[in-house]
């Protein structure tokens, strides 16, 4: 069956009258194109090499996660959040846990909060490294990819030491952390963070003054701040357009207000400015990780809330109460008071919001994820229409979307 006959395929764009009156070509880019980073499909109407219209087609990775939330206990749903944005699993864990903790009115001990900050910032580094490597690869700078994945491997090893998992960590739980931080985590993180700034210098040596890189990225994918705000763009893209907006500063959560860091801002709003913003964000994240590591407050890594947080294993063997709580939480979960919250965090890609509606039972009535990739991707058409087709790769690469995050 040809594509045009297949059910469910959008083909209206081909029947539209050409805008210029000349013959135009409709080019189908994706969903398997390597530079679309997943399964994004773009329908491009071309006049020569100029893009007349662009129509993104998403949904290839829709897995119904929001529906799935409704049949999971609150603590079970942590594992779903990993799989939304698989490059920033801990950011999603954090958003979900903070939202439920807000509904519960739960106080999280300082050590758990700082540990969350440290690991979330390592996640941001991890995500930005994948972005930088693949973005440079798309534009033709092969070797940057190898450098970035070298450091990413170190971060994944740290995650493995903490949670036993490299990607689907599920390390943050409602009420604190899943496990006690491993022995020797301090040395591991220190070893990484001591060398990391010099590694960022290496990436910059390869790209920042590279004439080919500048030629491919300067003045490409430009959008005005008004357009971006109107279309729901968030995160590094907004900051590259001159707006100082960062939920970590504006609406601090998980004790981010106790950390000293800058929010990098550039005004050119092109692909190069987005590159600069993310590079500087990596340096700032490294600063936060160092502060968290050096100033980690002592104390508990999970809240003192026996009806929500699983008891220690050794207590279960000696205390009847602990055994009962464990049994109750595992079998029927915990009830969350009725209400609704919208918890925003700054994910590596922008504003990540968890809208959770509780009806007073142990399972959420409704969960909606406001994912940054979905909002950012909506601006694709605005960004590439009227430009040359060769710039599409650079422009969509600079958005740093994850299709799992878009389609949910």
């Amino acid at each position: 069956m040809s594509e045009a006959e297949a059910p469910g395929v959008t083909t209206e764009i081909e029947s539209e009258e050409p805008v210029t009156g000349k013959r135009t070509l409709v080019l189908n880019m994706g969903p398997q194109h390597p530079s679309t980073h997943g399964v994004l499909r773009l329908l491009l109407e071309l006049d020569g090499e100029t893009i007349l219209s662009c129509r993104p087609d998403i949904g290839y990775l829709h897995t119904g996660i929001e529906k799935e939330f409704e049949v999971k206990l609150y603590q079970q749903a942590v594992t779903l959040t990993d799989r939304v944005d698989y490059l920033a699993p801990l950011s999603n864990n954090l958003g979900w846990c903070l939202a439920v903790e807000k509904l519960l009115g739960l106080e999280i001990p300082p050590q758990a909060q700082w540990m969350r900050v440290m690991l979330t910032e390592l996640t941001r580094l991890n995500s930005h490294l994948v972005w930088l490597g693949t973005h440079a690869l798309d534009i033709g700078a092969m070797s940057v990819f190898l450098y970035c994945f070298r450091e990413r491997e170190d971060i994944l090893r740290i995650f493995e030491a903490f949670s036993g998992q490299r990607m689907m960590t599920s390390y943050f739980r409602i009420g604190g952390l899943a496990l006690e931080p491993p022995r020797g985590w301090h040395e591991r993180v220190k070893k990484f963070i001591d060398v990391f700034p010099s590694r960022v210098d290496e990436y910059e040596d390869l790209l920042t003054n590279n004439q080919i890189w500048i030629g491919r990225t300067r003045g490409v994918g430009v959008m005005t701040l008004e357009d971006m705000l109107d279309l729901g763009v968030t995160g590094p893209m907004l900051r590259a357009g001159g707006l100082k907006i960062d939920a970590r500063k504006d609406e601090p959560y998980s004790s981010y207000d106790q950390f000293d860091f800058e929010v990098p801002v550039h005004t050119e709003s092109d692909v190069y400015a987005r590159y600069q913003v993310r590079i500087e964000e990596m340096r700032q994240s490294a600063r936060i990780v160092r502060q968290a590591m050096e100033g980690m407050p002592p104390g508990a890594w999970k809240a003192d809330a026996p009806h929500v947080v699983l008891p220690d294993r050794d207590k279960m063997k000696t205390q009847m109460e602990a055994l009962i709580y464990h049994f109750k939480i595992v079998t029927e979960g915990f009830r969350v008071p009725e209400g609704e919250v919208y918890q925003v965090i700054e994910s590596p890609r922008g504003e990540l919001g968890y809208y959770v509606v509780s009806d007073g039972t142990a399972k959420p009535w409704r969960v909606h994820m406001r994912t940054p990739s979905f909002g950012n991707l909506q601006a694709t058409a605005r960004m590439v229409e009227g430009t040359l087709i060769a710039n599409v790769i650079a422009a969509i690469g600079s958005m740093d979307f994850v299709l799992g995050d878009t389609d949910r």
Partner: protein
Amino acid sequence: MLPDSLRENTLAVSVADFDADAVAGGKLDRGELTLEIAPAKIVSICGFLKYDRKFVRLSTVTAVDRYPAEPRFEVVYHLHSVARNQRVRLKCRLRGADPAIESVTPVWRGADWYEREVFDLFGIRFLNHPDLRRIMMPDDWEGHPLRKDYPITGARI
């Protein structure tokens, strides 16, 4: 009618001053302001909030299915004012039979995909939307998966 608990809230009061008939209720819970808006007034209230109260960003549009209660659907808008560092939630209640509401795309172009998603997964129509098609599910899909009477498993393949 603005509830008495919100008489001190400047934002809620300003919305009620702009159009008292539009506000059907509201609450301030866990530090988050929710205003219930009459569905017919949603576009004018959104326009007021965007141009007068500087809520330049529409964070998200989504819906909640309260099946089997009536009115069955809640369309929920999360607005964000960057200049005032403030958020507000608007809520419109719709009846279960042929739910439809005016689109807010004339106010924020970014509402486009969010409303398509709600249309796709809840079957709520947005009037005067420029391009109301399914976005997540295939174009020929039957039913709306996020409705509560749609099964979690056992759907047709």
